[in-house]
């Protein structure tokens, strides 16, 4: 038979990190493909996704958040929401999973050389963006890019994923890190009293007028934080990800700051089974998220039919 694209290769779990607790906990898995030949074939690019098998339960699709490597190392974050993700959350180091891919297109990091890059993520949505900021921030690539800004938010401090990594970002002088949490908002938006200690509220009515000192942590929604940070669109690209509603407001904020829709990159998710354009279901109009995406410019997203 022809090479079987549906047959996963096996990989071993190297480490598991609990990123966030609660009813829908998130764990980040680092796995390594077992066979050398399969490692050589699994050379992912930033933005691509993998299909992971829990043998006996099925497959699920995950954005790869590790930077490209030749060792068959694949990192992905899993929110426990269904059958397969529930099973994956029960696994331990040393256990076996299946993996196939990498699939989909990728962020055009080659075209971005010499440009400033702004990463904007919300919640678990930071995961697909992680592969590309890890690529850009890697010592061997960092010099190829201009200023790097990371803007990231979650509901509570506990929900901020990749905590250890973000701690190292705070110490780096070659990137500007901005964080926000939004759980403290009452019906009237944030007030002085409702903001969390150490996370002052921004000016919700006019986010751009918020007074900024050395503090980089706020009680705010990510789109408003973008208006506080005011990233400069000149010779720059923005990479954003998160729930569709967050992306919508983030791009509106960028639009106010003069960003063009073709300067903004994002990744989309849809239910998938095959990952290779055959099983149907992931299409938004004639655009297959698995084949034409998952990376799109916001201009491309705006041209799609409204079926998200």
């Amino acid at each position, binding site marked *: 038979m022809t090479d079987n694209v549906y*047959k996963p290769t096996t990989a071993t779990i190297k480490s598991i990190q609990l990123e966030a607790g609660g009813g829908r906990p998130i764990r980040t898995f680092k796995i390594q493909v077992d066979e050398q030949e399969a490692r050589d074939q699994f050379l992912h690019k930033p933005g691509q996704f993998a299909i992971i098998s829990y043998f*006996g339960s099925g497959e699920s699709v995950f954005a790869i958040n590790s930077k490209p490597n030749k060792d068959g190392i694949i990192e992905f974050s899993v929110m426990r929401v269904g059958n397969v993700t529930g099973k994956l959350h029960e696994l331990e180091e040393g256990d076996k999973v299946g993996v196939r891919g990498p699939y989909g297109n990728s962020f055009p990091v080659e075209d971005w050389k010499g440009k400033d890059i702004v990463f904007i993520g919300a919640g678990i949505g930071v995961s697909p963006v992680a592969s590309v900021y890890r690529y850009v921030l890697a010592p061997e690539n960092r010099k190829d890019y201009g200023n790097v800004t990371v803007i990231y938010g979650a509901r509570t401090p506990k929900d901020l994923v990749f905590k250890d990594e973000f701690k190292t970002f705070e110490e780096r002088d070659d990137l500007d890190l901005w964080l926000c949490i939004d759980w403290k908002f009452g019906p009237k938006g944030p007030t002085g009293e409702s903001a969390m200690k150490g996370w002052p509220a921004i000016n919700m009515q006019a986010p751009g007028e918020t007074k900024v000192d050395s503090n980089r942590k706020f009680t705010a929604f990510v789109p408003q934080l973008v208006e506080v940070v005011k990233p400069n669109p000149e010779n720059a690209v923005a990479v954003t990800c998160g729930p569709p509603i967050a992306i919508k407001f983030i791009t509106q904020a960028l639009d106010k700051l003069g960003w063009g829709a073709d300067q903004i990159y994002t990744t989309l998710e849809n239910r998938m089974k095959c990952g290779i354009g*055959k099983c149907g*279901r992931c299409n*938004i109009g004639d655009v297959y998220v698995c084949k034409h995406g998952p990376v799109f410019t916001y201009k491309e997203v705006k041209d799609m039919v409204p079926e998200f």
Partner: protein
Amino acid sequence: MAKLISKDKLDDLLSRLKEQEKYEVFAPVEVDGVTLYQHINKVPSLEFTNSNKPPKDLFFPQTETMFQLERDDKVFVGTKDIETSSDPILVLGMRPCDSRAMLILDKLFYWDYVDPYYKDRRDRTTIISFTCTLPNMPKESCFCTSMGGAPDSNEGADMLWTDMGDVYYVESLTDKGNKLLELGGNLFTDSDQAHDSKVAEIKVNAKKAISRKLDTNGVKEALEKSFESDYWDEFAARCLGCGICTLLCPTCHCFDIYDVISNGEGRRERTWDSCQYSHYTAHASGHNPRPEKKHRQRNRIYHKFLYMENNLDIIGCVGCGRCISGCPVNIDIIEVAEGIKEAEGIKEAEGIKEAKND
């Protein structure tokens, strides 16, 4: 040169194919009033209107095991290949609409990534199409001539046979077809001028028998501007969401993949799925990009008439009519496609209505 084969020699042909090359032969067989493709050892009557179920499951089974799961003590840790046959397959008596559907499935299943299960069966299979002289499904639903096909189309087939009473008129189109001629040897005789001219007449009459028409001019243009039209509410209102239109479609290809454990053995299966089912697009979070029946019916129509063409340069409908005759609430793809043109004012604007009445 065309050949002839006498109907009473068909069983001999079958025996030769089985004995010499182990062909597995499938043909449309009527069972309890329903025509289905079945494995045959003797040639059945072969006088049938088109099969109720399309032949796609000979290439893309409704459910198939992709591979087994390898077990290590209590857990599954990898995959195990299953044994597959390498014997050739013959489909005797496919309708030209269904053979043309194979070209659409080919495009999809070979789109950048080759689907190994489909390709394996496709490569092993020889297709003998029959000129469609008994075209209409119940309720007169088929319209192949509107979709670029014809009752005597040979597209997608390895041979085209035409029923001439005592004999079949045999045209070989590919190496696979020639191989069959070779194996049949003296069972095939040369055609003559009388048969050649008679077959031309049969084909002309077959075309005339196709009564339903869909004017595809303007459908794409109408769809391009009507995604958010109220039209979709209107026509999807009576849809039951049963998915029969997609299950009976010879070009619908959607599937699900999942693991099954039974008696301690594990396997991965895939099975036909349908864009008409709500869980088909539902995210694990509960969010659903196509939450209502109108969105799902709309997707079916757009996929056939717009998306397939944009992505694979082929319209995803061959006009077999099964979705029409099979729909329990009489949703008719011809009426839907004509209706959207009307709703968008395209008929009047481009004078297509007049053209249709000519």
